[in-house]
């Protein structure tokens, strides 16, 4: 199984799960917090990620660095799947 998660996959997923209303031009390096990622959206995301990517994120995973962009999230999911 390919465990590598792509940033673009994360953007699509955030949109389709309706966790964030990301604009069409949103790119993998853009700031998710500026796009509206608040603590409630983080909770929704952590729960949704268990189902979609099979990762159980811990409180210590939830840093600004890890969650700030789709790229960083993809890297976090990849590491936690390994």
């Amino acid at each position, binding site marked *: 199984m390919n465990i590598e998660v792509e940033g673009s996959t994360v953007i699509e997923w955030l949109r389709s*799960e*309706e*966790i*964030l*209303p990301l*604009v069409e031009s949103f790119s993998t390096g853009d700031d998710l*917090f*500026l*796009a*509206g990622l*608040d*603590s*409630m*959206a*983080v*909770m*929704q995301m*952590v*729960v*949704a990620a268990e189902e979609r990517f099979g990762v*159980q*994120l*811990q*409180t*210590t*995973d*939830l*840093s*600004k660095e890890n*969650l700030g962009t789709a790229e960083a999230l993809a890297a976090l999911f990849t590491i936690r799947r390994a």
Partner: protein
Amino acid sequence: MIRDVDVAVIGGGSAGLAAAVTAARRGARVMLLERHGFLGGMGTASLVHTFCGLYLLRSGPGAELANPGFPTEMAERMIAATGLGPVRMGRLDVLPQHPAEFVRIADDLVSAEPSLSVQWHTEVIRLGKSDGRWEIDWACRGTLGKTICTALVDASGDAVTADWIGGLHEVAPRLQRPAYVFGIQGVESFPDEARLAMAGTLVEGMRSGVLPKSALGLSFRASGRPGEMFGTLDLTGGESESSYDPLDPVGLSVLEAEGRRVASSVVDHLRRSDAKWSSAFISQWPVRAGIRESRRWVGRACLTGDQIEAGARFDDEVALATWPMELRERASGPKWRFPLEDLPTGIPLGCLRVPEHDDLFVAGRCISVDHDAQASIRVMGTCFATGQAAGLAAAIQAGGGDPANASAELIRQ
């Protein structure tokens, strides 16, 4: 006890306040009937602490107010009271507002109008017509009384008068879930990192079964006052889909109890699990849960979600809706439906008028719209605007004029 006025306004939430003040300023003798001991409704009794829908959607810099007159005045007064300007949240501009300041601003606004009287602790219990004028029966702690008026504004939020006069009304089969907002103190500082850690603590609490699933719908926001925050919870009635009846006393009682139970369990869990929260306590309960959607009137016009998506405009429009459709039917957080080109939508006067009565006007969240459009127009910024329009139209009608002139009068402002 009988009072005779030109315009009576039922309900002193954001829409009713706007309607009463606007009608009084246009020269009408006005009576505002309110069930609580203060005005503001969702923004005070239910502790909803942001004004949404005040500003136009934008991609460029600078928040721009959408509706002149009363909504703009409220924004200015609130900014002066809190010292806080509009805040950008994702693609939206919102104005932080404090419920305690809202109460005071509303007091100042109504006391400045000599032709406006407010009657608190008053629940309307019957509506009828006699000799071509409205007769409103009300009760105040066992005292029964009557208000007679020429024109009436229903700003009750629940279209409470519709059934009594045989008016067309509807309740959507699947409603937006209510918001349960409570005050918290004892958390000294709450930086972004602590916020993320808290999200993790709550998820872990749910994984371990300590917290109910509905804790997932919880968010916290600083109130703007030192050491004070608000927690906001989307209530469910325990189900994944909301199917409660907002007009049923048993269902409403369950909601209130559930809000307190979930809020308490979350704050208790955070006190135990997160050092930043070790001294936290719930400092304030809402007077009532914040109902987002309820019964609404079926009027002369009906604004639809598709029209809001397209940014439709109308010749007889009296207010602009700018908030995207914020759908909160499901447990998994808000779903957004944005206007395709970020355009505002006109709210026609027909949405504020009913087919059978020329002298009845509706304002606030129970105007004539469909379920999706209601998810846009329910916000307080827009309720100020529809309240202003209904108050103006009612004052014109009571003065013998044609309420259809309300649109032109608003433009001249």
